[in-house]
């Protein structure tokens, strides 16, 4: 008779990724390349925000974008036309990016030649929050039509992000979005979260966002 053996494993799935992300962050710091991981639901405005951001910063910074949003061959093309470099990651229907995939993108674009690289993560509020990409900062977009109750449904995303951009504020008048209630919910989960109100359509609030990026870069270098 064969006997059942109990074998201790004690391994953590996320800790492998955490370690890969830590090494990537170190490499990027050595190259003096600042990376911002941009996360949101599909359609919240990641690509639109990037285009506005590149427009405002392209004369002072060398900017690159790693595109991982599904169906975003179009997005990478739009970004290139805006004057920044872009690489398209084939995520093969994956629901999030991990540090290894980001490293492929950074190697592909040649990260050391850039001051600032954005990662446009896969559009969802669930699992990108669980996987450290190696970026220095996490930015998340919540758009007005999504509603002010999202912190209750996706608490981890609000916990891991450094800055929250409330986008599509031009649609505020048409909705019952309660900004004060949202701020309160977010700060209960994450007291230090910076919250900026923007519209990637009208350009409102973009100056504050660009200032936030400049400050983050100053603290980095």
């Amino acid at each position: 008779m064969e006997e059942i053996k109990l074998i201790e494993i004690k391994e953590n799935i996320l800790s492998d990724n955490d370690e890969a992300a830590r090494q990537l962050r170190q490499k990027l710091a050595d190259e003096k390349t600042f990376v911002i991981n941009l996360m949101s639901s599909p359609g919240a405005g990641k690509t639109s925000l990037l285009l506005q951001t590149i427009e405002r910063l392209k004369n002072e910074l060398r900017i690159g974008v790693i595109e991982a949003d599904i169906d975003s061959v179009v997005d990478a093309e739009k970004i290139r036309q805006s004057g920044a470099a872009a690489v398209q990651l084939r995520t093969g229907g994956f629901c999030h990016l991990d540090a290894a995939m980001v490293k492929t993108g950074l190697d592909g674009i040649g990260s050391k030649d850039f001051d600032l690289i954005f990662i446009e993560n896969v559009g969802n509020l669930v699992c990108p929050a669980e996987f450290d990409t190696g970026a220095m900062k996490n930015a998340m977009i919540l758009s007005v039509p999504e509603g002010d109750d999202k912190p209750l449904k996706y608490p981890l995303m609000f916990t891991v992000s450094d800055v929250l951009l409330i986008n599509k504020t031009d649609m505020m008048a048409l909705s019952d979005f309660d900004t004060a209630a949202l701020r309160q919910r977010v700060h209960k989960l994450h007291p230090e979260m910076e919250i900026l109100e923007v519209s990637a359509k009208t350009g409102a609030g973009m100056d504050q966002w660009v200032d936030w990026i400049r400050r983050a870069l100053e603290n980095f270098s």
Partner: protein
Amino acid sequence: MHELPVTESILEIVVKHAKQNQVSRVVSITLEVGELSDLENEWLQHYFDYLSKDTPAAGAELKIQRAPIVLKCRQCGHEFQIRKDELGLSDCPQCGTAGDVSLVSGRQYHIKEMEAL
């Protein structure tokens, strides 16, 4: 949400340990998954059955234990457990401070042990 990539990682680790321990068949695998992750147990097992077909882990049962969300109050240092739907809603049960907490645990995917022949 990402049952598939997580299952791939689990299988990789399990097969590695099966080789190291020279076992012929894995019977069960015990996982500890934090309450904050949105994994569906059924999907995990389903993907695992599919991916593990030609490995020593084929047919193994996944025993999934849920680990609670633990927060720490940054005012008084008290650690307390809450349910996922209470996140951002509950004050510190010790000092009453609202919303000044850090996450101690609740996001882990820990592979604890396996039974094998």
